[in-house]
């Protein structure tokens, strides 16, 4: 098999995931896009490992071992990520990452304005009361 086929497919999948991470608004959809990017890397690792296991005489099968490690780390990452998203959703009532701007820095939050900031704070306080 031509090595270009898996390599190109993995590059395209990675860029699809990149678009998803940058363009999506829901935090869980962003996590899905991260999964797509990790899978693209896995495909690359497997393809090059299969190629090297024939081209080289002595190989550690590092590509497949690293693929297994990536899959395990991705599972851990999705567990932790979903726990964080659920905690944020419980405290804020939203999983919309465009609205989670508390850590945003700026001269005076010029794009947000003090009004919407105060409104967001009031909404957060309301939500905290509701959950307490």
């Amino acid at each position, binding site marked *: *098999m*031509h*090595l*270009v*086929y898996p390599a*190109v*497919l993995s*590059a*395209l*999948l*990675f*860029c*699809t*995931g*990149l*678009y998803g991470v*940058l*363009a*999506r*608004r829901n935090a*869980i*959809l962003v996590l*899905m*896009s991260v*999964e*797509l990017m990790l*899978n693209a890397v*896995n*495909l690359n690792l*497997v*393809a090059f490992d*299969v*190629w090297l296991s*024939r*081209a080289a005489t002595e190989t*550690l*099968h*590092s590509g*497949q*071992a690293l*693929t*297994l490690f990536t*899959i*395990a780390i991705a*599972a*851990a*990452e*999705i*567990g*932790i990520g*979903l*726990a*964080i*998203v*659920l*905690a944020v*959703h419980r405290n804020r009532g939203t*999983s919309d990452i*465009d609205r989670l701007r508390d850590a945003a820095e700026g001269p005076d939050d010029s794009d947000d304005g003090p009004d919407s900031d105060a409104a967001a704070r009031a909404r957060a306080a309301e939500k905290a009361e509701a*959950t307490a």
Partner: protein
Amino acid sequence: MSIAAASHGFLSPTGVEIAFLLVGLVTFGAALVTVTTRQLVHAALWLVVALGGLAVEYLLLTAEFIAWVQVLIYVGSVVVLLLFGLMLTKAPIGRSPDADSGNRWAALAVAVAAATALVWVVVDAFRTTWIDLDGAAAGSTKVTGESLFRNWVLPFEALSVLLLAALVGAIVLSRKAKAAAPAAARTPGAHDDRGAKEGAR
């Protein structure tokens, strides 16, 4: 270059290549739908198609063990966890008009630029490289297990500690002093997935 091209034939793809291309098209299309659809639950379901297509690609590359691990872990547990997350955050069923943020055109430009650059470089670099798929499978369970437990034992054990830490972290993050109904609903699932993974490996 000429020798490799002559022995393989540049424009006469083999059956495996045609199968890889078709499954790859399905996988890429499913991935595109995943990142563009406005129905959130459909995104998770199309992700199943994309991940399953990747498992078939692993099989075509003779990496059997990775393929089944992919089916078990990704299709079996990660997508289920994602669906749980969508349900628990009260994601709207049906079309949601604000699924994409305002910077989607910038994101599209970045993604297309990255895809162009990557595909160009990769095609230019590996134009004359062929994978030899004949003979014994390169990723059978025996080969993978031997290499994993002969050369990669220490990272493997470190990874089990990492999984334990992730498990504890997920429980700590999702439990609350009271009214922990969502946490109670999802932490057993996480438990079982991790346990199944450890068992599968």
